């Protein structure tokens, strides 16, 4: 009664087919929830259901009863059948007993006859063997005549044991002796065949096989075989060597592959068949020792031969003097390398592909070196050409030749860059994807990085800077070098630094798949750029120096050769000053072609007016100091010292910048400094001093335009005039207006 109260069972309680059906609850629910009509219907349905269930039960009972009846019948029938079988089994047992006794009787009667028969058959086989023995010499002979060696050996081996066993019995001794002589002959025959150089590999193998079967010492055979092979391979090598000079590299490699290498392969293969693989069948302990021995022997043989071959190939590769066609070379090397890779299976201990790759690497290195050589030569040639072009026509058509300067530079850069690019294109053949050795890491590393990038490109750029620097090195100052060449090369280095280095390096890296960030050993672009920059600077400094010294020389000669104490009153500017200005102008136009003034020109003009003004004022005062010059020396010394006190120190030769103004300023500084030194070495009369006054004024009129800072020129010219005043016995200056007139007159 508890269960129906549980809420989850409520439905079960109401389920009419469920186990926990509670008729009272069900009825209650029915009465509560349904109308009378519904209840009536329900009742009818239930009554119908009950009737159906009842009839079903009846049918089931009836069916099961029938089955039970049939089972009882079957059990009864089985009982009778078993009874019959038992009787028949008893009968069978009796019969078996009688059969056993009969068979025992028969076997006891037949015992004797069987023993006799087995004895007879033993005798028969013995006789047969004896007969074979007696016949053996004859058989062997016929076999020999037929050259059916293998059968002969078979036969002999058959009889061998018996002969050994009974060999000391008189009747067999004859046979044994006969056999042995024949066998000896057989062996010599086989050996002949073995040593016959024309014999095919198969024949060779056969004879060796037979000889081995005849217990010939394997080691001896082995070495004999190798000597024989050696002879033939050596011939091949000699042939190769003879041919190496006439044939080109492809033919040579082909010849090597088809001749020497395939022969070697054949030898090795047959050796394996004969000495190493076949021994497996025989006695194992000996076998292993021998196999080792054979393998070692073979290895040394192969290594020896290959080494000679490699030497030949190396020589041939080295012989390829000029650049030739890289494609052909690469093709030949590729074939060579592929063949070697195939060879590798032959010999266990040595990696021929490694030696091969070394040869290939060498070839690559050589190719790079030759290219480098050619590049260097080409560069030297263009330098010489440029030098000639610069020296010869300069005096005749100064303007025309100078117009070409920029073009010359461009063409030089262009040819160098193009040449290098051409070389890169040529070398890239080495690492094409279809080239076998190019896939090897070893080769790629060494070729791309060490040879092409570092050995060729970087080396060439270093060569460029070294050549450039060589022109201005301390020890070999060649006075014949045209200064313009220095200027040109300086610009060349500068231009290289500003892009071409980057271009060439990135081209290289791209073509040869080099990642410059990966390896720290690589020369970086910066390093090269720095050296380029340094060389450019060095060349430019040197150019300024040379030009400065050239003008200096002119000035010095002009001051030294004149007698300043006995000179007349100045009427003109000395010719040398005009020459100086002319030279400066020509240098200016030359430099202008290569170095543009980036924006400094405007700046220059904008504040030049101010500067000119201020300097002219100070100059005026300065002059008045000299014009009122009294023989009390000290004042002027003091004045010039005080003047110096407030002016910046002038570096006569500070580093030149890469601009026209800086270059010209450098040259002018050197020249004017020289002028001053020369003046200090002389003693002047009044007119001598006035000549210097005219000259410096003239220079002042014409030089300021070349420099960035006019002050500098003024200062240096003032110093010159000041020095002249000091060195003058009668320091009286000319009227500035007269000086102006003289200078304007030219």
């Amino acid at each position, binding site marked *: 009664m508890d269960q129906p109260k549980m809420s989850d069972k409520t439905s079960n309680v109401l389920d009419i087919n469920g186990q926990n059906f509670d008729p009272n609850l069900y009825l209650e629910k029915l009465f509560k929830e349904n109308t009378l009509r519904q209840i009536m219907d329900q009742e009818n349905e239930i009554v119908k259901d009950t009737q159906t269930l009842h009839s079903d039960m009846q049918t089931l009972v009836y069916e099961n009863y029938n089955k039970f009846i049939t089972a009882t019948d079957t059990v009864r029938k089985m009982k009778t059948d078993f009874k019959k079988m038992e009787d028949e089994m008893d009968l069978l047992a009796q019969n078996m007993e009688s059969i056993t006794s009969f068979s025992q009787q028969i076997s006891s009667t037949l015992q004797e006859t069987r023993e006799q028969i087995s004895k007879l058959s033993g005798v028969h086989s013995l006789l047969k063997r004896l007969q074979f023995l007696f016949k053996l010499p004859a058989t062997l002979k016929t076999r020999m005549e037929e050259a059916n060696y293998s059968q002969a050996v078979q036969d002999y081996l058959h009889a061998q044991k018996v002969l050994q066993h009974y060999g000391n019995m008189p009747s067999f001794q004859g046979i044994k002796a006969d056999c042995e002589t024949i066998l000896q002959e057989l062996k010599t025959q086989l050996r002949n065949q073995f040593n016959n150089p024309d014999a095919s590999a198969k024949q060779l193998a056969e004879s060796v096989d037979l000889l081995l079967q005849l217990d010939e010492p394997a080691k001896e055979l082995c070495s004999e075989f190798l000597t024989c092979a050696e002879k033939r391979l050596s011939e091949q090598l000699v042939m190769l060597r003879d041919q190496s000079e006439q044939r080109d590299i492809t033919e040579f490699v082909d010849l090597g592959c088809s001749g020497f290498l395939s022969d070697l392969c054949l030898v090795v293969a047959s050796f394996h068949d004969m000495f190493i693989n076949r021994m497996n069948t025989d006695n194992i302990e000996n076998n292993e020792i021998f196999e080792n021995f054979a393998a070692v022997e073979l290895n040394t043989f192969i290594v020896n031969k290959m080494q000679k071959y490699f030497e030949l190939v190396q020589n041939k590769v080295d012989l390829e003097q000029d650049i030739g066609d890289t494609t052909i070379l690469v093709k030949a090397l590729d074939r060579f390398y592929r063949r070697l890779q195939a060879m590798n299976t032959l010999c266990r201990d040595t990696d021929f592909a490694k030696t091969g790759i070394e040869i290939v690497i060498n070839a690559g290195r050589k190719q790079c070196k030759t290219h480098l050589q050619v590049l260097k030569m080409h560069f030297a040639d263009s330098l010489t050409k440029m030098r000639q072009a610069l020296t010869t026509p300069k005096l005749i058509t100064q303007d025309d030749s100078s117009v070409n300067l920029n073009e010359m530079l461009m063409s030089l850069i262009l040819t160098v860059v193009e040449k290098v690019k051409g070389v890169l294109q040529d070398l890239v053949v080495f690492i094409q994807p279809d080239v076998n050795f190019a896939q090897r890491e070893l080769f790629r590393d060494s070729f791309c990085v060490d040879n092409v990038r570092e050995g060729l490109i970087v080396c060439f750029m270093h060569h460029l800077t070294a050549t450039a620097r060589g022109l201005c090195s301390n020890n070999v100052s060649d006075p014949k070098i045209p200064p313009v060449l220095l200027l040109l090369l300086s610009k060349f280095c500068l231009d290289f630094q500003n892009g071409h280095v980057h271009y060439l390096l990135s081209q290289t890296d791209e073509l040869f798949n080099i990642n410059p960030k990966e390896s720290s050993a690589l020369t970086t672009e910066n390093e090269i750029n720095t050296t380029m920059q340094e060389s450019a600077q060095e060349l430019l400094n040197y150019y300024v120096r040379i030009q400065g*010294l050239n003008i200096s020389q002119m000035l010095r000669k002009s001051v030294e050769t004149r007698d300043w104490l006995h000179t007349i009153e100045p009427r003109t500017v000395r010719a040398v000053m005009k020459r100086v200005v002319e030279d400066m102008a020509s240098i200016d136009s030359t430099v202008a072609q290569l170095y543009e003034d980036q924006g400094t020109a405007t700046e220059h003009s904008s504040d030049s007016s101010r500067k000119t003004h201020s300097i002219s004022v100070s100059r005026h005062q300065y002059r008045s100091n000299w014009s009122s010059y009294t023989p009390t020396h000290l004042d002027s010394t003091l004045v010039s010292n005080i003047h*110096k006190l407030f002016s910046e120190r002038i570096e006569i030769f500070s580093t030149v910048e890469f601009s026209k103004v800086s270059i010209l300023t450098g040259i002018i500084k050197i020249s004017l400094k020289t002028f001053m*030194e020369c003046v*200090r070495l002389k*003693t002047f009369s009044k007119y001598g001093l006035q000549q210097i006054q005219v000259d410096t004024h003239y220079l002042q009129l014409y030089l300021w335009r070349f420099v960035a800072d006019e002050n500098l020129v003024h200062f240096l010219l003032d110093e010159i005039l000041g020095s002249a005043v000091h060195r003058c*016995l009668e320091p009286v200056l000319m009227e500035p207006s007269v000086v102006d007139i003289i200078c304007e007159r030219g």
Partner: protein
Amino acid sequence: MELSFVEYISYKHIFWIFCGYTMENENSVIYGLEFQARALSAQLAETEKIRFLIGTQSLKQVNNQIHLVEFDEENSTLKTTVYHHSDGEIWKLNASPIDTSKIATCYNTVNRENLCSMKTAILKLPDTENYDHIENLEILTKFNIDSLGTDIKTTEFHPSDASKAACVTDNHVILWDISNTEAQNVLNIALEGKSNPKFTTGKWNPHQNCNQFATATETHLKTYDVRTGQLAWNIDSAHGQLMRDMDFNLNKQYHIATCGDDGFVKIWDFRQTSSPIYSRTDHSHWVWCVRFNPFHDQLLLTASSDARVLLSSAASVSSENNQDVNIHDDSLDSSENKQILSDGPLQWCEHEDSVYCAEWSPAEPWIFASLSYDGRLLISRVKRSLKYQIML
């Protein structure tokens, strides 16, 4: 009235401080002259005191002076004695290597007609120092050069023979006997050649028994044997432009240093004259003077019109670079381990004007003097670190 000396010095000091060269100041002492000067010489015979002689250059010839400057190293002070040299402006001054009292000057005298003539004389420095008034120097020996050239470049005392001296004029080398007041002409060597070549300077070779006299003419170096007057050896085109000065290495008998207008300083082994064994261009203008340190010949002193004095190393060719000599000498292990200086500039002094002379002190190997045209003498020490590096 002229500016007093003290006042002038103070100007110099202002200038000095103004330019901020205090760093170098620790290493050097300045002495200012009131005139321009281009003649400096160490008092060679004096081996105890550090003494230098300066000759001034002023066209007002009575103003010219000779200053004897003595440097007290311990206190870094200077003691100077001034003598008049009223005969003319001094272009070149040399001290006798044997007699401390003898000096030779080459000077320019201007006569009343404003005509110049070069003269040379040997003068005597007085033994006693007289501070009260400035004396004129007594002339010991006069030279009569009139016929042998118009310009006198230098008068060089013989390094060991007190009775000999050599004059270099623009086209002659003249050997004199100077035992008497009137120098006796012993030998004349004329310079021959196309386009009237001139001598620039000359110097005795201290080796080979002092029988050779080296001269510079244009770009070439010519050395004569003074016994015969013949050319002993020469270096043609030693410099690209005019050669200004030379100096023999006292410790290596075949080495000579040269310098010139091309800005190069070169050292030659004159047995092998095709190329110099040392060559540098560290100056930016003409190099006027080159001197080996007499004790440590890897130290090379050069003066240039770029207003700089450079102390450079020429260790690679010095006598102390004894790598090849010492190989068999195991006892000198320490010297093999010694670091050799690399060639190139080691130390420099800045002047305000061109420097025409620089000299080592014969008494103290680490002291040198340099004289710039504006009349400033700088006495400097070799940097201590450098000194130890060379000595240890």
